[in-house]
């Protein structure tokens, strides 16, 4: 190979250009603003089918109403990977103008006071449900508006199977186990209880969804847990029940055989098709059924995770996610971003949400009303709320949630770790989280 000096220069230049290109692309982020009287803002949402479809529909309706504003949609993965990306983008100032993210403890971890725009003076704030206001506020300032409905963490079940076997909705854990055993005896091809550890987050429902029951037995539990007081630990009752239940359904052989490699979407399909009877899950997962088996949506009902005593059995409710405006957004863009946030919760925006995001519980803002043809399980959820048998999930009452809960519960639910050891591991994980957050008393 003969390399003349000119050739070397050409190669070097090309190499430098190749190196510089991605850098240039990086800095382009939020730079491209108003062009020809038009303002462009960007909106970040999660890359799963349901969220990106909703984002697109909201943007389309918004641009129609405000022809001078264009919205560019960006997506990123959800879950813990998404949490990390959020923090990185906010701390490096490369966050989109408007972004969609969890409310509650995960929202608090984003350091809203310095990274987000204060939305307290927006017109829609007065319409918010009080519970929601508290999970998007820091020091009395509101930073977010809701997207989508609240939802329950409970047991989804196939009503057809329940009808066929003449089963009743269980109100105690023992009834739940005996129902499951009847289902197992009636048809070996139907899994009594579905578990889907290929999506590790799904392993947490029997613990997180049990919180309303803990709260019913000990209303001070969340406070004591946050402040490291008393015996509010997962190794102790009443909180230990969740770990025990996770281990019990596996040891009694009530779980589907392919629990280790099944995904959340596959489990929802199995539930809709009747190859699985019950699934401890978030009611928000009904969106999967609406997309894949729309005819089966009303075959799925929901009941609260049963407690040992029927009188304690209550439903755990998650507040909706929020949309937030980055603190870096200013001027025309800030106005446009605020308009977009307001639009999402205006009657037109609610209409889009009703059409795209499957409603999974009541809305948290009075301007949004559920459509008449909601999935049947919302009726079940509303009944618990009307009866006063519901409580917000622990993550809305305490900033502490150990990051390894899902992994520990996969181990417990697969029979690798005994329930007691798993609970002890999680308490250690919680301690670490509390210390990292700098909470007093740990």
């Amino acid at each position, binding site marked *: 190979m003969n390399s003349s000096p000119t050739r070397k220069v050409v190669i070097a230049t090309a190499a430098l250009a190749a190196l510089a290109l991605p850098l240039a692309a990086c800095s382009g982020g939020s730079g491209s603003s108003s062009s020809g009287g038009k303002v462009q803002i960007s909106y970040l949402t999660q890359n799963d089918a349901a969220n990106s479809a909703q984002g697109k529909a909201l943007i389309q309706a918004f641009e129609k109403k405000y022809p001078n504003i264009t919205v560019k949609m960006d997506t990123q993965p959800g879950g813990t990977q998404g949490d990390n990306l959020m*923090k990185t983008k906010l701390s490096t100032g490369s966050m989109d103008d408007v972004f969609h993210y969890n409310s509650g403890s995960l929202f608090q971890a984003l350091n809203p006071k310095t990274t987000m725009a204060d939305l307290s003076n927006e017109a829609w704030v007065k319409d918010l449900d009080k519970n929601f206001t508290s999970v998007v506020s820091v020091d009395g300032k509101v930073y977010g508006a809701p997207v989508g409905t609240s939802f329950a963490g409970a047991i989804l079940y196939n009503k057809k199977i329940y009808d066929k076997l003449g089963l009743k909705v269980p109100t105690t854990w023992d009834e739940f186990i005996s129902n499951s055993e009847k289902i197992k005896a009636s048809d070996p091809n139907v899994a009594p209880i579905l578990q889907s*550890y290929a999506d590790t987050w799904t392993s947490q429902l029997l613990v997180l969804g049990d919180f309303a029951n803990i709260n019913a037995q000990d209303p001070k539990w969340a406070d004591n847990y946050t402040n490291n007081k008393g015996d509010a630990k997962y190794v102790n009752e009443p909180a230990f029940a969740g770990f025990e239940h996770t281990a019990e359904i596996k040891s009694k052989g009530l779980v589907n055989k392919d629990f280790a*490699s099944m995904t959340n979407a596959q489990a929802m399909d199995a539930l809709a098709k009747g190859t699985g009877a019950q699934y401890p899950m978030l009611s928000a997962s009904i969106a999967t059924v609406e997309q894949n088996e729309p005819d089966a949506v009303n075959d799925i009902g929901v009941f609260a995770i049963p407690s040992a005593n029927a009188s304690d059995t209550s439903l755990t409710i998650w507040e909706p996610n929020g949309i937030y405006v980055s603190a870096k957004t200013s001027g025309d863009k800030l106005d446009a971003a605020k308009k977009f946030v307001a639009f999402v919760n205006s009657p037109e925006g609610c209409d889009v949400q009703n059409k795209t995001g499957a409603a999974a519980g009541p809305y948290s803002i009075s301007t949004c009303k559920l459509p008449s043809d909601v999935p049947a399980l919302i009726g079940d959820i509303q009944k618990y709320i009307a009866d006063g048998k519901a409580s917000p999930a622990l993550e809305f009452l305490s900033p502490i949630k150990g990051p390894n809960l899902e*992994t520990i519960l996969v*181990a417990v639910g697969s029979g690798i770790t005994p329930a007691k050891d798993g609970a002890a591991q999680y308490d250690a994980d919680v301690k670490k989280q509390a210390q990292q957050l700098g909470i007093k008393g740990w």
Partner: protein
Amino acid sequence: MTTAVAPTGTVRGDKRAERSAKKRKGIRSPYPTWFYIPAAVLFLVFFAVPTFASFYFSLTRWTLFTTQFIGFDNFVQFFQDPALSQAFVNTFIYGFVTSAAKVVLGLALALLLTSPILGRGYLRAVVFFPVLVSTIGVGLTFKALLDPFHGPVNAVLGFLHLPQPGWYTDPNLALLTIAGVDIWKGVGIATLIFMAGIVAIPSEYFEAARVDGAHAWAVFRNITLPLVRPAMGTVIILSLIGGLRSFDLIWAMTNGGPGFSSDVIASVIYKEYQAGFFGLSTAGNVILFVVVTAVMWPVSWFLNRREAEL
């Protein structure tokens, strides 16, 4: 015996004298000092500064927004991690299994691919091909192939009435399955290094052996194996370092699961990052750095000493 030792002693003594002589004169270099400045600046900015910065951040509680100096608390906490003791054991199992398999298989394949066989060039390419593919891609592909219920591998095993193991869902098997995939992917590099080593052996040795009527095994044991030892040292060092700090394949296939059964130090560190414990995970990285150094230093010293004696 004594006579045999004496000359080596003098040779070593000579070398030492030479070295100290050099020191006295100052290091003579073919390049002027300014010639080193660009490289030194690069080294400082991209290697030295981040290294020292990470030592500092490992001593802080760091949220990306604020830092707070907390001394050695992070290290204490890292060692209290419930997953860590298993991750330590797994790291060593993974490192040694993959390294050993790459040495044995790499040498065997190198012997095959340096002998006059049909389609040698093509076969060499086939062995090297997995090295070029993205690790994440390989991980996801094998995850699909080895799916315990819907994957083709278990479908074939089922057809043959053989047991169908839960390759990466069985806690006892998950780590070894990943190690197997790692070996498949990485053996090409080992083969390449061994091939270079074998080809570098002067052909006179083999001719002489053949004239003496040596069998294939005798040739391998007495010529190839000793003379390929420098290549073997390189393969062991490279694959052991790679194995001890491996992460991408494990993450793509199991995320360290089921439970913590295929967690290694690197995946525990990554989980700490995900949880937002940036100071804590930096402390983990410092520990990983120390562990890899502590293992590799004696290994590399041992291998190089053997090489020098040959």
